[in-house]
């Protein structure tokens, strides 16, 4: 294998680190299985690497990645069709790529925003938001004070609000009105 110049390698690694996880989630929506999704994404990156010297990194590679993962996932399903009484897949039904891409965009944005938080802040935010741990539990687990947990959570919210600001403005969600009780 020819040795590629260093900057291309560094760009490729960055591409890999930024997109690997969201691409696996994307594939999982289609193939439903984490290990399969992982393998599909790995093979997409290997193929991409083989063409690496033809990539122009100033242009978005993302659509290519998503399309390849979509194709790989759909091909996998086609080759491993399972017919059970509940899950009979209608061969006539086309799985539309755009069915999954809408939520994918959201996941990717949010994944990138959280990944860009400073390490400790991210860790504390994830414990609170995804593991539903109370501040005291987090403080005990990480051997820090509750005040520190509060400060880090505030920092996380502040940074995430900035990173997701343009994205939030176009979304409508149903919120619980705390202050509507009289």
């Amino acid at each position, binding site marked *: 294998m020819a040795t590629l110049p260093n900057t291309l390698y560094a760009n490729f690694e960055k591409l890999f680190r930024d997109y690997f996880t969201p691409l696996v989630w994307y594939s999982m929506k289609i193939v439903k299985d984490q290990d399969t999704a992982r393998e599909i994404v790995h093979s997409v990156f290997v193929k991409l690497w*083989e063409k690496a010297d033809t990539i122009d990194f100033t242009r978005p590679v993302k659509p290519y990645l998503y399309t390849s993962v979509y194709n790989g996932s759909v091909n996998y399903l086609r080759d491993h069709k399972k017919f059970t009484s509940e899950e009979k897949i209608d061969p006539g039904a086309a799985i539309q790529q755009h069915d999954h891409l809408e939520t994918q965009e959201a996941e990717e944005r949010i994944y990138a925003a959280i990944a860009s938080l400073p390490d400790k802040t991210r860790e504390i935010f994830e414990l609170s938001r995804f593991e539903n741990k109370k501040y005291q539990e987090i403080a005990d687990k990480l051997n820090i004070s509750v005040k520190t947990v509060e400060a880090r959570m505030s920092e996380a*919210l502040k940074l995430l609000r900035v990173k997701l600001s343009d994205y939030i403005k176009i979304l409508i969600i149903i*919120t619980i009105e705390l202050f509507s009780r009289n």
Partner: protein
Amino acid sequence: MKNGKDHIIPLELISRFLSGESTDKENDMLNQWLAESPENAGILEEYRKVWAHTGILEGKPVFDLDDEWQHFQENVNPSKKENDLWNFLAGPKFFGSFYRMAAVVAMGLILGYSMFYFGKQFSTTSFQAQLGKERIELPDGSVVILNKGAEITYPEKFSKDNRLVSFSGEAFFQIQKDPERPFIIRSNNLSIRVLGTSFNVKAQPNSPEIEVIVNTGRVALYEGSDRKNEKNIIAGQKAVYYKTLNKISVSENTNPNFLAWTTGKMIFDGSPLSEVLEVLSSVYHKKFIISSEKIKNCRLTVSFENQELPAVLKILETTLDIEFTENAGIMQVDGPGC
């Protein structure tokens, strides 16, 4: 902003509210803040959305990107050729399992064992400086100056991905620059990784520590093949790896004579006798024992360059009013004190 006051956003209150931790009193305070200005409701709403949206990732699997990147690299660069065993030896899987198997085997024997195991399919050279200081040149032109007793094992030809050697004892490495192929020294379970630089390694088999001091350039140290927690040191710095604690600690190098054993040049500026004797020990391969506490901290300011040991000892005896006596190969030092 009607009266020009700065807008204060009670982030702690908001974060406690969103995560369900806020008390009634805190909710009242938040209500008050909301009432202060119509903008505040909008701000709270934005934070509510951030909280809600991040929830879509709840329950999704996370991946160790370092592991995945490693997996990717293995996919694109498989070493399936049986003759290319050095690639295999350099790979993380081999070292991971090998060190578990070979835990009781002394460092110097490890490469010997693997050579036995794999037969004559690849050739490596093992060299030990038995008589004293020895200078050797490696296949890539890098130079290693071995102190007495040091041993190094290296392949006939380095692989195309890296330059891997194993080592024990003390040596001064002058590594040729090759950014495409990092130079990796394995000693016990420590990996020392460089691109092109010069540094001293002290990895005595019966010592609990491995010490690396950088002369020029930069060196990275990590355990086994796991570069996740690697530590970098530059010229003027020293790293000590504590074998049983699995800990690498970085500090400033305060020993100006760390290369004395290869250059023969020693400079002491108010150094205590105990330190002086340590340096002499590494240069002249003699063991020194201080018989009296009183002379341990006697200070010495002097330099030596390529002098024979008897001459050096004579100067010390006169300067510090001490006496050296040789007893069964060990030098004992005594004196009335300073």
